[in-house]
């Protein structure tokens, strides 16, 4: 199988002169479709910077990132935006939902911004909400949803453009453990069902049972690259048995 995301010799530092801190140090790594990879490590180990560089959000000082064969950091700013829109999905720690919009409107919004007709955007948003099990909440606003539901709306919003790669930054840190596990199990289902490459930055070791692979980062380099044994999960709840 061909790697969908390939990072080669990534280098990145913050600050200047004596205050310069190296965050990524000649880091090379590959990710495959249909897999959930957890990127773990202590604070400051460089995992969020790695995710930003892989996701086309932060230009590294050196090195390249290839997503589905496209060299991200060789693209112009506008082409990179277009590439992100067509191929990448993002899930953040905060759910970042507009308080004024219903779940259905939140999910349809990326498509509407992309120029999709309203009816078609709505149909695709409904399908995405169904996939995360929130059809019944389509007309609810964020204030009427639980934390777990909000994150699932955010996942549906990331899914609706049918990305090849899904980047998630601490997607469970604002959730209780059962909701957190459910969210990661959902991400794993998405990876398996659509062949999506899912890269998740997390602190939470409980999520390891829902990942195919765990990378441990330390001081900007991959300290450990661990393949996980497949877990037996309930197909209905998504929880590990």
């Amino acid at each position: 199988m061909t790697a969908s995301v390939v990072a080669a010799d990534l280098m990145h530092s913050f600050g200047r002169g004596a205050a310069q801190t190296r965050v990524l140090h000649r880091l090379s790594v590959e990710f495959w479709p249909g897999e959930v990879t957890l990127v773990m490590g202590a604070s400051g180990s460089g995992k969020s910077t790695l995710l930003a560089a892989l996701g086309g959000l932060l230009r590294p000082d050196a090195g390249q990132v290839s997503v589905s064969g496209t060299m991200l950091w060789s693209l112009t700013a506008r082409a990179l935006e277009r590439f992100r829109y067509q191929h990448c999905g993002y899930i953040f720690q905060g759910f970042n939902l507009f308080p004024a919009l219903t779940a259905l409107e939140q999910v349809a919004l990326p498509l509407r911004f992309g120029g999709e007709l309203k009816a078609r955007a709505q149909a695709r948003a409904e399908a995405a909400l169904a996939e995360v099990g929130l059809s019944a909440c389509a007309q609810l606003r964020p204030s009427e949803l639980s934390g777990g539901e909000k994150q699932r709306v955010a996942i549906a919003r990331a899914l609706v453009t049918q990305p090849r790669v899904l980047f998630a930054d601490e997607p469970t840190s604002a959730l209780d453990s059962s909701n957190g596990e459910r969210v990661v199990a959902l991400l794993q289902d998405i990876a398996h069902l659509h062949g999506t490459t899912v890269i998740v930055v997390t602190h939470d070791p409980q999520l390891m049972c829902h990942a195919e692979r765990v990378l441990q980062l330390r001081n900007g380099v991959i300290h450990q690259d661990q393949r996980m044994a497949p877990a037996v999960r309930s197909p209905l709840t998504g929880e590990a048995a």
Partner: protein
Amino acid sequence: MSLARTILLFEWRRFLPALLSVTFAGVLMLVQLGLLVGMFGTVTVLADSTAASVWITAPATQSLDQSAEIPASLAALVRANADITRTETLRVRDGSWRSASGTTLPVTVVGISPSASALSCPAPLKQWLCALLATPNTVVVDRSEANKLDTTTAGMAEINGHRVRVVGLSQGLRSIGTTYVFTSQQTLRGLLDREGDDVGLVTFVLAELRKGAEPATVVNDLLTLLPPKTAKAWTRVQLSQQSQRWWLEESGVGAGFLFSTVLGLLIAVVITSQTLRGVVLSQLREYATFRAIGVPAARLGAVIVEQAAWIGAGGGVLMLLLVALVAQLAQHFYVPFALSGLGIAVAMAVGLLTAVCSGLLALRELYRLQPAELLR
């Protein structure tokens, strides 16, 4: 419904200060403009309310209320123009009013021809008051000045020590520059001191044109006909506009109006842009998420500019309602207040522009935004 309007309606409380600031900046501008135009419009009420299309004044006249006297014989000279069907003279002199209870006030006595069909009879007196002035020693004053003059219909008073009787009250002949008292030319002669009175002099010669004649063309012809050191010809509109311009420039009110309007608009821009900026900042993470997804900043900016435009439009409507209310109040209290459609359209456009500029200022936050910051 668009994202902009959905957010605007759902979070209207957040946007309210911006809406109100646009509204009040517009109201400030329009009320000032209305009062200014209304006030200075009254300076030329004498010209504006008569039927004469062409006015002859002393040559150095800058404003209607400051015209020196000219020979009455000019009326005959003016009639030589083929487009002029009839002429009339109008005499305006300062006088001293003393009411029955002793209130004294300087006034401007306007001597007109006491007939409803007279060129010098102002429109508000046409119905019956002009004819009443044919009775010697009678005068008409404006209803809005009656309190100041301490008189009413059938009231007795003195002008320059001569007894006069108020035969009626007019409406709409108030002037900011002076207090007009209307009388017949015959009565006016009686009110003037013999020494200071020269029957051969008048203040204005008024001319009526034949149907279809162009006042500007006639005025041009008259300018070559009249001795330039003795008299000057104007169309009614020219004289009115020149007088208002003179008052605007001389009084300094025009500069004051401009200053306070610009100040009001600046305050509106600051409040509106700060309000919009606050709303953008509160939703920066949501906008950043869409920047991460690859939505161009310009598309997200369009949402904010659309919100700003709606605020401008909403503020404009609210402004109109408030200004209509102010206009009603002004009418009720006889305060001169006048607004043209153009003035209102300009105020609406300025309000909209203010809001959109504020929206564009608020966009700075959006363009400064780095989606990678969501990952820290």
